[in-house]
């Protein structure tokens, strides 16, 4: 019964969003009442979808297995937390959550935007149209409310053990919040293009929403990377998996957007470019949703399904993107700013980095598309792997870091003095050169990417440190948010550089009683325990590890392999020992015929700093909000 109510409320919400959209197309009569109506009806639509989702959560908590989707993805024995997270463990439910978040962002925007804003009605109308389109997709191709008749199963499905993990349970919601958050910039700027009134100050409206979306997307991606590291046993932080890549593209475009918005709002330059970016970010989010949900790419993330879904998503995305780009092309002649970019000014450096970001996005896009195009043309499967991405990303990131450092302390709309005349800049260059030379000789690693990575990360860190110290000393104003976020970036480059250079991986064959020495540690396989749990059998190895460098201190590691009964799924539980500079990471492989076991040992240097750095970047972005409030 509650299932039917929830279903019915979603249908009502769709009708209300459609109504809100229809009203919004009538606003040209400049009738103020109809504009209020657009916003009101939209709010009602939001409340219906919210209640509908809450009811659905209630059904999941109650384990109502008359609902097919819940029966297939949940189980009576699960803790409440996982009963709720099972909602977004597969296609239908996660689409429902995606739509809820889309509605949530839109409603917050609806509440916050002043009634007097002449773009409010068309922007809300557009959001209503987007919501209506996705609700139709949900109801007609991926209905989570479908029931099993006549009799409901009693216990539900067995649970995919890999999915029972806190990081997995919370990373999709953050990702979705980030992805769909960029819809605000998309809708508002498309409304701006449709209206065509060039005096409207859209940058101020769009910027906080894009920043918030960027923060959530960053958190979502980091949590996903952390989950893959310690739960999937992948032993790294990034794998250039197609589904990671489709999340990275909106992130890169979003990063470019928040910077470009800053330039446009300050100098009136780059306007057309910023608008194109705001359209691209959401389009790339749609592209991601399409790739993951159409079954075009095989990945552990993708949802198996039928081609109808892919076609619907493709068609609807095509409508949105084409409308928006058509208006963009139509308005382009008036959009192109008359304010030219002054050379060696702040906006000039930011523009160069915009170009670099566009190149990175294109490189990832090509990496995702190339196997598809190749398969389509020649019927052969090929894959594009990490070497391709690393060769493109490393040098461009170094280049971007240098222009970033140039932009610090440079001025808007005025040419800045560079190099040796600028003492802070030359001091940072000198310091980072010295420390890079020292570290390169210390680690005896002369790879170009190691040298480049160290130099660019220290360049960023020193430049901002000097800025902070100098500003405190002189009592000058400096952009604290930007300083924090870019220090995060410096740490991220530093951590990834060290991780790539120092990390060690070795696959060994070992049997009980034997010892293997890998760099400064001695691994002795002591024995195996067989553990019988209620839903799985497990083999657990016990290793004693002796740290030769620190007085032969001994600790134990227990890598484990589980076999779950019902699905017969085998999972590997890695054992991780965290030390200040690195993680010692062990995974148990297969048993060989001669009694030996395959064991993978990794030392992952500074891997934790990568996630910390991402956190620092988010903090910096968060700080922009306190700054803009305190200025009022």
């Amino acid at each position, binding site marked *: 019964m509650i299932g039917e109510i929830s279903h019915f409320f979603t249908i009502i919400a769709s009708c209300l969003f459609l109504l809100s959209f229809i009203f919004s197309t009538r606003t040209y009569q400049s009738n103020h009442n109809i504009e209020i109506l657009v916003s009101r009806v939209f709010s009602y639509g939001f409340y219906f979808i919210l209640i509908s989702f809450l009811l659905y959560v209630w059904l999941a908590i109650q384990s109502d297995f008359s609902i*097919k989707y819940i*029966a*297939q993805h949940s189980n009576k024995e699960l803790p409440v937390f996982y009963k709720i997270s099972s909602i977004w463990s597969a296609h239908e439910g996660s689409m429902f959550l995606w739509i809820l978040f889309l509605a949530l962002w839109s409603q917050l925007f609806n509440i916050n935007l002043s009634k007097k804003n002449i773009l409010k009605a068309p922007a809300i109308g557009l959001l209503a149209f987007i919501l209506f389109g996705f609700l139709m997709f949900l109801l007609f191709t991926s209905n989570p409310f479908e029931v*099993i008749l006549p*009799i409901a*199963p009693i216990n*539900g*499905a*067995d649970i995919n053990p890999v999915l029972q993990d806190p990081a997995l349970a919370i990373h999709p919601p953050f990702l979705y919040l980030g992805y769909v958050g960029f819809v605000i910039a998309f809708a508002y700027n498309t409304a701006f293009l449709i209206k065509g009134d060039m005096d409207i100050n859209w940058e101020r409206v769009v910027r906080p929403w894009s920043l918030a979306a960027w923060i959530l997307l960053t958190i979502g991606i980091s949590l996903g990377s952390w989950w893959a590291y310690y739960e999937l046993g992948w032993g790294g932080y990034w794998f250039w998996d197609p589904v990671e890549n489709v999340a990275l593209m909106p992130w890169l475009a979003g990063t470019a957007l928040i910077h470009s918005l800053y330039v446009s709002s300050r100098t009136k330059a780059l306007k057309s470019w910023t608008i*194109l970016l705001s359209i691209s970010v959401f*389009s790339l989010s749609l592209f991601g949703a*399409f790739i993951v949900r*159409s*079954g*075009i790419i095989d990945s552990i993330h993708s949802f*198996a*399904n*039928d*081609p*109808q879904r*892919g*076609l619907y998503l*493709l068609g609807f*995305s*095509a409508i949105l*993107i*084409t409308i928006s*780009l*058509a208006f*963009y*092309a*139509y308005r*382009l*002649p008036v959009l192109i700013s008359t304010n030219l970019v002054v050379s060696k000014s702040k906006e000039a450096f930011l523009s160069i980095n915009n170009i670099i970001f566009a190149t990175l996005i294109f490189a990832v896009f090509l990496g995702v598309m190339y196997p*598809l*195009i190749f398969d*389509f043309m020649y019927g052969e499967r090929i894959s594009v792997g990490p070497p391709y991405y690393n060769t493109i990303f490393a040098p461009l990131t170094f280049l971007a870091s240098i222009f970033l450092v140039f932009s610090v302390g440079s001025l808007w709309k005025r040419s800045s003095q560079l190099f040796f005349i600028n003492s802070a800049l030359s001091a940072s260059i000198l310091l980072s050169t010295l420390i890079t030379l020292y570290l390169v000789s210390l680690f005896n690693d002369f790879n170009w990417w190691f040298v480049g990575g160290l130099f660019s990360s220290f360049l960023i860190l020193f430049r901002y440190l000097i800025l902070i110290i100098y500003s405190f000393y002189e009592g000058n104003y400096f952009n604290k948010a930007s300083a924090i976020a870019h220090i995060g970036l410096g740490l991220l480059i530093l951590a990834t550089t060290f991780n790539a250079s120092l990390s060690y991986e070795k696959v060994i064959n070992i049997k009980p009683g034997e010892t293997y020495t890998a760099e400064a540690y001695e691994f002795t396989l002591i024995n195996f325990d067989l553990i019988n749990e209620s839903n799985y059998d497990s083999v657990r190895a016990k290793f004693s590890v002796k740290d030769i460098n620190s007085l032969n201190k001994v600790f134990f590691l227990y890598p484990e392999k589980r076999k779950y009964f*019902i*699905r*017969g799924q085998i999972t590997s539980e890695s054992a991780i020992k965290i030390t200040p500079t690195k993680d010692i990471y062990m995974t148990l492989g297969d048993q060989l015929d001669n009694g030996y076991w395959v064991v993978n040992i990794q030392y992952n240097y500074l891997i934790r700093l990568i996630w910390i750095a991402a956190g620092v970047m988010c903090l910096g972005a968060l700080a922009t909000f306190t700054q803009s409030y305190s200025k009022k």
Partner: protein
Amino acid sequence: MKNLIRSLIILLPLFGIYFFFNILTEEKFYPGADFRSFEVPNFELSALDIDVKYTSEDFDNEFLMNVWASWCITCRVEHGFLMKLNNDGYNIVGLNYKDNKSDALGWLKKYTNPYSLNIHDPKGSLALDMGVTGAPETFLVKDGIVLVHYSGEVNKVIWDNVFVPIIKENKMFQ
């Protein structure tokens, strides 16, 4: 030049959309469908309901083989469509997969039996040889050769688009 940029802005995405449209409407784009044919592997397993042993030699005619289990929720969902196929006269062989006998028999009794006969594969050995990764999965077999292997729920859409063309092509079930 400016007009070129303006038209490219619209044409490039449209080209991409056209490309994906082509992939999605390709005749055989059904995730889960595998059309590589292979011989039914050798096996010897007992029947689920009667005391008979089946071997691969018993299966040299035309039939559908459906992998199912009482613990499998999707099999419950698929059941209705299998009943319809059975009523339309298709011969469906059940392969009961990693299941316990009494649960499986109880399931058939409760929901009615769409299968002409049922092979009991408690360890999933035949299923493993046939490339089964879970339940439900369905095979189309002619003269001991598997023509279609479909992983996932068979419903009207899948039946019409994946199975029917191959059945017609091979003039089966006439």
